């Protein structure tokens, strides 16, 4: 529908403009000692993106993120399906997965570093453990709460088990599974960057932390800005797809 969608667009634009104004105001109050203005940040980012060093770090982050996401999705789907289909396991494991959700996973990062050593494998492992849980939980829920009426309908139409799964169970589960993947995407990104901030030798998170030791405020603000824009932008795009899958 045209109406509500254009309203959301208008509101988003107002929001973004508002945030930039708040930023500008903060800069006005605090000054160069600790901040940069929006325009200065964007300019610096532009210059930064012309250096080879930047692309090196970006590539490293993206590589780690992509692999971590793939692992999180595949393992999350498998776990979610298994637990969703086997009633007892699903009921028992779900609260435990939810409990794992609430622990500060960075606590486990030193263990991962000891196991994998400092390098891209540790980052991948760390990113993956952030993303697995939401994918698994949403998939579990999607499989478990398939409306019984849909299964009854399939039986009344005498559909074979394969057709049942392919034409009813799977399409019915897709919207919720996609939401799980969307959340998993964001959390994997956060996990990968966080890992880089704690202990890494390359990547955007590492770049951010190195900027502190150099007290390079321009660099801090540009990388933070870039990370926020990337994360928010992709999530919004995924949200649009998510809403469409849920069909109004």
């Amino acid at each position, binding site marked *: 529908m045209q109406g509500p969608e254009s309203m959301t667009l208008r509101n988003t634009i107002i929001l973004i403009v508002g945030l930039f104004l708040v930023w500008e105001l903060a800069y006005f109050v605090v000054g160069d000692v600790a901040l940069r203005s929006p325009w200065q940040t964007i300019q610096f980012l532009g210059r930064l993106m012309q250096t080879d060093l930047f692309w090196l770090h970006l590539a490293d982050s993206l590589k780690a993120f992509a692999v971590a996401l793939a692992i999180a999705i595949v393992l999350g789907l498998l776990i979610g399906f298994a637990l969703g289909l086997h009633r007892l396991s699903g009921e028992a494991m779900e609260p435990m997965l939810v409990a794992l959700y609430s622990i500060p996973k960075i606590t486990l990062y030193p263990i991962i570093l000891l196991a994998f050593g400092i390098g891209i494998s540790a980052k991948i492992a760390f990113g993956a453990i952030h993303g697995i849980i939401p994918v698994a939980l949403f998939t579990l829920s999607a499989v478990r709460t398939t409306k019984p009426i849909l299964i009854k309908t399939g039986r009344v139409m*005498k559909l074979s088990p394969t057709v049942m799964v392919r034409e009813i169970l799977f399409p019915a589960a897709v919207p919720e599974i996609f939401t799980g993947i969307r959340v998993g995407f964001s959390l994997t990104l956060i996990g990968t960057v966080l890992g880089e901030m704690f202990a890494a030798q390359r990547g955007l998170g590492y770049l951010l932390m190195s900027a502190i030791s150099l007290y390079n405020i321009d660099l801090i603000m540009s990388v933070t800005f870039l990370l926020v824009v990337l994360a928010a932008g992709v999530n919004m795009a995924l949200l649009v797809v998510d809403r469409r899958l849920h069909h109004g």
Partner: protein
Amino acid sequence: MTAAQVTLRGVTKVFPAAAGGNPVHALGPIDIEIRKGEFFAVVGPSGCGKSTLLELIAGLTAPTEGEIEFEGHAIGDNVPDGIGVVFQEDACFPWLNVIENIEFGLRRKAIDANEKSRQAKAVIEMMGLREFARSYPAQLSGGMRQRVCIARTIVAQPRLILLDEPFGALDQQTRLLMGDEMLRLWRQTGATVFLITHALDEAAMLADRIVVMSARPGRTIDLVETNWPRERDSRIVERENFGALTSRLWKTLREESLKTMGRTGNGA
């Protein structure tokens, strides 16, 4: 006398005990005969086993005792060909639009895509859904969604249509209109219709014959012939014997309903 399409002889259904409980004797013993082409209704208090009866006839569950036959063949635990079911809950597939939902009803037919599309469109016209053909169920009202489910069922041209309180979730006016539509479809398709309802006026208005069931375990305690003409609609409520009909149904039903009033849990 028209041939019997469905016969139940000495049918009972007992559900095995749930964790730490007793087995539930839901239904029977029950004997029913449904004639080919008639509009047959079942009324009864909540929990009397009406829906179980429907599931037995549909072949979704097997009887504990007794035999059920559809067109001369025994029904066990599988759904016979030629039967369509409309449930009380919304069974539309939310990821397909209206016409795709209806075409899904033709899945098992060995016809090509063009023919499927043609038949689906014909049913859409028959049910006045043309304006909503590309809408998704989430965008439609409850009554519309039920009509889509009915359309999906009749597109496969079943010989027996089972309706499990299909209008239960709708308001009174919509129900009356849906009743008229159901009568029209019944005449146009020539199918046998088996309706379960808790609304006495609905049964009295729509059916050729009505069976009244007792409280659980459900048994038949009355069988009423309405003798309505085939060409009828909701205006039949104006007739003299309509009032007498519903009174008779209620008299029989009232005592049975009082027996179930104290019990909790879901019906049928």
